[in-house]
């Protein structure tokens, strides 16, 4: 899985450079986030602008990251959702759980 990970002040920005976030690759995202939590990096922004397709496993990995960040007094936010991806969050009511921003700049400023 191709991820671009960079620190922006207190926030770690993860850009998912994949067309799909699914049962095949979402485990890697989960593992990468756990590594960050172990290093004490608990504020994460995930940019999904390149992601065209998310399934329930992909959503599950984001929920896992959200729960871990919250448990460590941090936060996990999302940005760059394509319309079809956004409708997945609505179908599963997860749009009420995550803070979702149009772009990375606004999202970074919100931490």
């Amino acid at each position, binding site marked *: 899985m191709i991820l671009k990970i960079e620190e922006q002040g207190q926030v770690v920005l993860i850009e998912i450079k994949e067309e799909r976030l*699914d049962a095949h690759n979402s485990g890697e995202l989960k593992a990468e986030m756990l590594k960050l939590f172990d290093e004490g990096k608990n504020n994460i922004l995930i940019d999904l602008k390149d992601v065209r397709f998310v399934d*329930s496993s992909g959503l*599950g990995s984001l929920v896992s990251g959200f729960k871990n960040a919250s448990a460590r007094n941090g936060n996990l936010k999302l940005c760059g959702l394509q319309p*079809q991806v956004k*409708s*997945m969050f609505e*179908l*599963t009511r997860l749009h009420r759980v995550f803070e979702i921003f149009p772009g990375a700049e606004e999202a970074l400023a919100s931490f």
Partner: protein
Amino acid sequence: MAENIEVDIKVPNQTRYLGLIGKIGEDIARTLKRYRGDREELAYHMNLVLTEAMTNAIRHANEDDPAREVHITISIVDRTLSIKVYDQGQGFDVTTLPTPDFRGLNEHGRGVYIIRSIMDTVCYRRHNKGHVLEMTKVLP
């Protein structure tokens, strides 16, 4: 003229093939001649249903055994879309799972809810040495 389509494909029991099968579903949605609904939405939904059903077959029914196989058929006959996913396992009846609790933040359990939300009928039954998950939807 009737527009009947049938696609029959077998892949190894590995998640690396999810994207391939999902893409075939999307391409069918985009190719349909007479579909009157939102074509891009149907493409996403076919990709999603195939991905979720295959993941259940690979991970649960076939227990991640790479030597097994997943068999998928996609057919459209008289405006009815029918997707069948055959596994070679002991059975994992997704149709008996409860609706997820949306207040909880469970990492799992949304796949079957998604399939049920999109398709009109969902049924799981024995077939030869395994099981088949059959899903249908009448297209507009």
